[in-house]
């Protein structure tokens, strides 16, 4: 009797996946197609029922659950780490595992749909640049040599912070220190001067050179480092008055020289010497804007071009807009500037007595309503002021 029960258990454990999958599933679904290249372990073991239901399901492809919950039933470590991760890759945050991974098998490692370079560039199109001198991992399409795919503790999803990532391949030699005129290069921010993807010249230096640096006149700045922003204003006197506005970005004390929060002192990839593209640079401090964007259905098409609407140094308008709540919009939206709901000094918002502007009703940073309206344009927005309608 005991032997019979034992045999029954063994049979049922074997028969479930094997009969359920190998025999039943593969009668219709080509086994060869599903097991091409590197196979997902449950597929290789014929455990189709780990992910699929045989008869009916409320999810597509007869899945037992939706992604990513289904994936996280096995990949628990990843799920746990994502809970604590400060930065999560967009598709991962949306639970879109299958945007990068195949479910059954792939010719690529980690069941990737395509090679890392092709796959990454399918979204990160702006990074797909041909350089005269590309960085070797970039040229070989080894994005994952430097970047994490799922989560990271930094906005660029770098595997290691600061220069330690670079020194995992490059040797920290005396010669390197001599070139950089320091005792130890480990404390330097390599990415401030070097483009990690590539550049026009040896050393992958960024293209735009600050004149004192280009001329080798290091002491122009380095003898005045203690002066902070004043050092920069000596050569850029007009910039000083950019900060004489009600709202300004001069966050003294945030770094020894507040200008260097946003600007690189030696070389940069843009003529403004910004440390990064505005959409990434601004988010270093204004992380909540990215959160608002992620939670919004409607976003202004120029959302990523912060400086299209905002001034970087100073402004007399809230949010450091480049003009009041009308003029900043009318520069592009010319028609709305002439024909719209009455706006301006003489038209007052009954809720607070302030002049009505475009941003009274619209929020370009992102909302859940068409045209970036703050509330539904069907009724609720209008009823805020027009109570009798």
């Amino acid at each position, binding site marked *: 009797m005991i032997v019979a029960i034992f045999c029954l258990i063994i049979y049922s454990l074997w028969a479930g996946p094997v009969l359920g999958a190998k025999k039943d599933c593969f009668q219709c679904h080509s086994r060869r197609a599903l097991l091409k290249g590197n196979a997902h372990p449950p597929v290789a073991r014929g455990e189709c029922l780990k992910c699929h239901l045989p008869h009916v399901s409320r999810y597509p492809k007869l899945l037992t659950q939706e992604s990513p919950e289904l994936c996280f039933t096995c990949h628990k470590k990843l799920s746990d780490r994502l809970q604590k991760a400060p930065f999560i890759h967009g598709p991962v945050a949306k639970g879109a595992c299958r945007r990068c991974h195949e479910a059954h098998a792939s010719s690529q490692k980690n069941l990737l749909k395509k090679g890392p370079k092709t796959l990454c560039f399918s979204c990160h199109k702006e990074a797909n640049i041909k350089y005269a001198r590309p960085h070797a991992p970039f040229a070989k399409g080894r994005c994952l040599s430097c970047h994490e795919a799922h989560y990271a503790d930094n906005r660029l999803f770098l595997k290691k912070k600061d220069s330690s990532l670079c020194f995992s391949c490059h040797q920290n030699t005396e010669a390197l220190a001599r070139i950089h005129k320091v005792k130890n290069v480990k404390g330097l921010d390599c990415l401030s001067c070097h483009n990690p993807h590539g550049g026009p010249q040896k050393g992958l230096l960024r293209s735009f050179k600050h004149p004192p640096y280009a001329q080798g006149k290091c002491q122009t700045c380095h003898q005045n480092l203690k*002066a*902070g*922003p*004043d050092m920069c204003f000596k050569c850029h006197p007009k910039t*000083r*008055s950019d*900060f*004489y*506005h*009600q709202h*300004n970005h*001069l*966050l*003294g*004390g*945030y770094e020894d020289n*507040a200008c260097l929060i946003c600007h690189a002192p030696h070389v940069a990839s843009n003529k403004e010497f910004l440390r990064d593209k505005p959409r990434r640079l601004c988010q270093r*401090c*204004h*992380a*909540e804007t990215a959160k608002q964007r992620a939670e919004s259905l409607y976003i202004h098409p120029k959302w990523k071009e912060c400086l299209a609407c905002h001034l970087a140094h100073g402004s*007399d308008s*809230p*949010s450091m807009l480049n003009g009041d709540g009308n003029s900043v919009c009318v520069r592009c939206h010319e028609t709305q500037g002439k024909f719209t709901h009455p706006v301006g000094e003489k038209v*007052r*918002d009954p*809720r*607070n*007595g*302030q*002049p009505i502007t475009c941003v009274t009703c619209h929020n370009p940073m992102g909302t859940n309503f068409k045209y970036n309206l703050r509330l539904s344009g069907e009724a609720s927005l209008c009823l*805020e002021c027009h109570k009798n309608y």
Partner: protein
Amino acid sequence: MFRMPQKLLIFILSILCLSIHLGWASSLKLTVSISKGPEGKNLYQPLGMFFDPYNQRFYVADTGNNRLLSFSLNGTPLKSFDAGGQLKGPYSLVRDSKGKIWVVERPFNSLTEIDLKAHRFERHQLSCAGHPVLVDRIAFWQDYLLVLDRASGMVLLYDKDLSCVKSLRPDIEDFKGFFDFKVKNDRLWGLENITGRILALDLKSGKILDIVRPKFLVSLPVSFELDEKGNFYLLDRYQKVVFVFDKSGTLKHRLFKRGYLPGELNYPWQLLLLSGKLLVLDEGNGRIDIWGH
């Protein structure tokens, strides 16, 4: 005689203790909402607020209208002043014991001295240790004028001749500069840029006396206050709320919500706590809301 069950008694006492402990902030009610000056003109982008204990009035820098306004503590508008049209973009202000008004005019980066009795209006450009100062919020302590320098993130002490006598910077490596400050009981309390950390310094020695770090996420902290019970009030301009937390940094309340109506916040800029009243200056709504009981 009626005998209350012991468990019920304990329960009621616990609730009572809890409500006393948390009470003040959670039971705030909007008492007055000020949106107009004495002549009926709406405030426009006001950015500065100062309470004068000598005459029990509070003063507002109505920045967008280039004027100063005074109000009684119950919110009655008293006077409007624009120095005969000379005043431009007043940003912050204080009134000294002699009745002189000191105003920061941001378009000129000046500390402007206004002596009404002597009919004097003079703009001063400040510097400290040879460096020009980007004048921000100001306050008085004893005979010193305290100036927040946005260029260095430090609070500078000026004597009556406007000579810079001291600069206050916490002696910690990761200090990121002050964005706002208050003076209470010979202590300088400063709100750090971006982080929301609040530091207390001894005004005489400059030594750090306290560091309070919020244990919750802040986005854009722009002003703060502290009450006698040791609670901190932190104004978050982006989230449009006031966080109330204790000395350990533990969040106790989130006050107010975003919006345009009285009591709601649009682009809030400054907090002031006066004898049981919390004043919230809202640039976006052009309003000062006074909360009390």
